[in-house]
């Protein structure tokens, strides 16, 4: 591989690497606006200029590639610093002083580079700024708002719709200083990936309609997690404040979602605000309900499981929102009471797709982990009742005990017919985070954490195992499902009491072939494909 010297640091890079990427490898950040690792190189913003020995003029780092040894690059010479100052000045002379009202403040490349590379005063004192009248809040599409005055003409959004989404809605109109981005009348920016242009816009020209004026970004804490909208398993960053998710941002994973997140996935962050929350264990008896302690709730549950009067099946029903570890424990609980009735219900949804360097990944499940749950053992044993018998058929009415984990079946938990069927079980326990119509008819409702409040793994449509971490703790009376299931299981199998998630994962790896050889601590950040199922086509369900 060829080497290049940047600011006296020698770095070896694959041939064809550009100087911005080469610099990043040795911690040198060359400022840039228009370049993006996944978009074509246009060299338009002129912010990334560097000095290359032997070349009289400054060159753009984004368009200069290392192909052989010997290139010597300097990123902080007086000529470079003056060029950076000049570009910042040119960008700011017509830029509105909107920072106090602009959503981008705090994560704005104009602010950041202006501070680092610009000057602290304006020389544009007597002229009128170029503005785009009537274009301060133009809805380009359902998710994206344009303020054309703030645009710095980097064309990332134009290239995104041409090269990534392939939909071409955004054009680059006019010429010279009047140049503007926009859409064709009657053809709004309306593709499933549209909000990504908000992420890649370096400034506040393109902002999210749903996040508008919602929060100042410097108040947001950020934690890595996964989207739960479908089984593609896009990596996200949960950005939150005081226990509320404020938005998802895509987290880079070139193997799954690359730099992107679909519009639907972004909206799933809002579910936790939309549905009422189960906040304390609740027992319903003789038409009244009361909040109880966890001890009472779990004691009652255990008694019902052990009751000698149980003549009908003891059924355990999970959803695709369970983590692999939770599904494993739920199946183990069924085993502990000798029940083959372990089932999983997952809605299928519209096809969702996300592009990455290898192509597109497409998912159909409206939940993130049907595969992980099934591989962890949540499949009916011999003679076991399956999910459709419970939700569509009348098997629930025969059950002495029905444990539904988790309550969030998507549509099913709100479907009065499904609720009616499931409540036909003699004793219904519903464990979940949402106080759905199903949870409200349960004999016992057990409140557990959302995926933002716990950790675990999901296995996506391609068989990729990925870890997610908690962003914030659950409300005080709410527990993690893993610990609830673990405690219930320990009442039948005392030797399994108090196992950590790593230990649960190890048990799962020992007992379920798909996870064989994997360790909780050693799951790579970009996930890992479970070879044994990678080539199996996903089964249609629901």
């Amino acid at each position, binding site marked *: 591989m060829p080497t290049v010297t940047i600011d006296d640091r020698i770095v070896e890079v694959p041939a064809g690497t550009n100087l911005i990427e080469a610099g990043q490898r040795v911690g040198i950040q060359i400022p840039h606006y228009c370049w993006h690792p996944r978009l074509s190189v246009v060299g338009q913003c002129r912010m990334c200029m560097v000095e290359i020995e032997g070349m009289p003029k400054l060159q753009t780092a984004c368009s200069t590639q290392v192909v052989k040894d010997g290139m010597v690059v300097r990123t902080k010479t007086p000529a470079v610093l003056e060029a950076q100052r000049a570009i910042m000045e040119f960008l700011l002379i*017509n830029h509105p002083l909107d920072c106090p009202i602009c959503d981008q403040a705090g994560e704005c490349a104009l602010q950041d580079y202006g501070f680092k590379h610009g000057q602290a005063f304006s020389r544009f004192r007597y002229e009128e700024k170029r503005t785009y009248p009537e274009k301060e809040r133009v809805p380009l599409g359902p998710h994206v708002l344009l303020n054309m005055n703030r645009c710095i003409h980097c064309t990332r959004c134009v290239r995104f719709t041409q090269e990534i989404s392939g939909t071409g809605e955004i054009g680059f109109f006019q010429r010279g200083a009047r140049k503007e981005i926009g859409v064709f009348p009657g053809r709004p920016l309306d593709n499933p990936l549209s909000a990504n242009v908000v992420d890649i816009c370096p400034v506040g020209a393109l902002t999210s309609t749903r996040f508008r004026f919602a929060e100042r970004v410097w108040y947001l804490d950020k934690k890595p997690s996964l989207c739960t909208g479908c089984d593609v398993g896009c990596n996200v960053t949960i950005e939150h404040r005081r226990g509320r998710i404020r938005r998802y941002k895509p987290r880079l994973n070139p193997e799954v979602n690359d730099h992107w997140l679909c519009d639907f996935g972004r909206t799933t962050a809002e579910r936790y605000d939309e549905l009422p929350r189960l906040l304390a264990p609740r027992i319903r008896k003789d038409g009244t309900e009361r909040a109880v302690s966890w001890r009472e709730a779990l004691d009652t549950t255990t008694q019902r499981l052990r009751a000698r009067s149980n003549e009908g099946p003891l059924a355990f029903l999970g959803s695709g929102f369970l983590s692999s570890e939770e599904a494993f424990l739920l199946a183990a609980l069924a085993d502990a009471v000798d029940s083959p009735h372990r089932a999983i219900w997952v809605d299928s949804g519209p096809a969702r797709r996300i592009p990455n360097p290898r192509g597109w990944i497409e998912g159909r499940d409206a939940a993130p982990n049907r595969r992980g749950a099934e591989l962890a053992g949540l499949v009916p044993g011999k003679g076991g009742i399956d999910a459709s018998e419970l939700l569509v058929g009348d098997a629930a009415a025969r059950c002495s005990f029905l444990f539904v984990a988790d309550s969030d079946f998507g549509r099913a938990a709100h479907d009065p017919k499904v609720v009616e069927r499931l409540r036909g079980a003699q004793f219904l326990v519903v464990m979940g985070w949402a106080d759905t119509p199903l949870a409200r008819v349960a004999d016992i409702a057990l409140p557990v954490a959302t995926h933002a409040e716990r950790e675990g793994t999901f296995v996506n449509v391609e068989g990729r195992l990925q870890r997610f971490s908690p962003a914030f703790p659950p409300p005080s009376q709410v527990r993690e499902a893993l610990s609830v299931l673990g405690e219930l299981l320990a009442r039948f199998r005392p030797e399994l009491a108090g196992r950590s998630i790593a230990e649960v994962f190890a048990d799962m790896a020992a007992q379920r072939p798909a996870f064989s050889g994997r360790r909780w601590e050693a799951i790579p950040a970009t996930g890992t494909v479970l070879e044994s199922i990678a080539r199996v086509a996903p089964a249609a369900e629901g």
Partner: protein
Amino acid sequence: MAFEKVLTRNVGHPEALGVRGYRDRGGYDALTRVLRMAPEEVVEEVKRSGLRGRGGAGFPCGMKWSFVPRQHPKPKYIVCNADESEPGTFKDRLLMENDPHQLLEGCVIAGWAVGANTTYIYIRGEYTKAARILEEAVRDAYASGVLGENVLGTGFRHDIHVHRGAGAYICGEETGLLESLEGRLGQPRVKPPFPAVVGAFGCPTVINNVETLCCVTHILQRGAEWFKGIGPDERNTGPKLYAISGHVERPGTYEYPLGITFRELLEGCGGMYKGRGLKAYIPGGASAPMLGVNDQEIPLAFDHLARAGSMLGSAAVIVMDETTCVVRATLRLSRFFAHESCGQCTPCREGTNWMAKILTRIESGKGTEADLDLLASVVPNVGGISLCALGDAAQGPVKSLLAKFGDEIRDNLRHGRYPLPRQRFFDPGAAS
């Protein structure tokens, strides 16, 4: 000065518009010879002639041709840059309207030399008459076997297509032209790669100006030595069309050996308009820095003008007399560049606009000396770091304004003389 007309020899001879008439006057001889030469020899001949591009950049033509890889899996293209939009330039129009076959012949020769079977003549959209004449000449050439599958019976295939632009100066920039040809916004491309390797439709392409290709025809007719013998030295060779306009008695296109002086050119077109005094002149189109009364002896050639701090460019000479407000003149050119900037890169998009605004304030009387200093500090960054040469070009008029007339402007500002009184050109009392 008496000088044998080369490029303009068929002007005034309308029979040359047809293949037959053109042939009768010696045309298509060069092509006939070329098709018997090895392509490499043709490139060498052009190199030896010292021909430099007549579109504005003055790049050695033979060297440009030699950048095209001999072996390449993709087809190659010749593109004739007939976009002629540099203010003050109208020579290519003269050539196309009066001697189209001279150009067509040069295109086919170029095609043979680099291995291209297709020429696109990209002609500015406003030149409707020239485009019509060219298309007629092309049709005639096909009918006469000069173009098509079997050029002059040699089995060489060459097609020429006339492609009209739609009004954008930036489409005269090589890669802006290619973008426009391909059906896109005429926004220049990042270079490298250069068109000789990745050009039209991703294929190796030679882009030459109309006058350059016309010179090629004559070089291959009469030899590199003959061409090299015209002009002041070996790096500045050949006959040249000078387009002179503005405050002169007889504006027009004049053919001279490369390197005549401004004084000779001015004399040859009847001197200053109404005998007035000279204030300033632009030697090579809007991008060329202005020269003044003390600069009339400089040979109007590539290197000589470059040494004098200006450029030959398209050899479009614009003459300004003593009634001219040079600030207004520079403002008009700055507005031109701001209007024509494609807008994709920051320094040109914002900088040309800003310079025009500052000059507007100065010209209208609302400016101060501090504005001159501001202008002086803004101008260096509009070019040099821009994506293409338009940013560099936009600097030319402003830099020379400050260099040649800075003191005069400061004096005017101190005395509050702006705006200077406008001299009406049309005397309202005189007969039309």
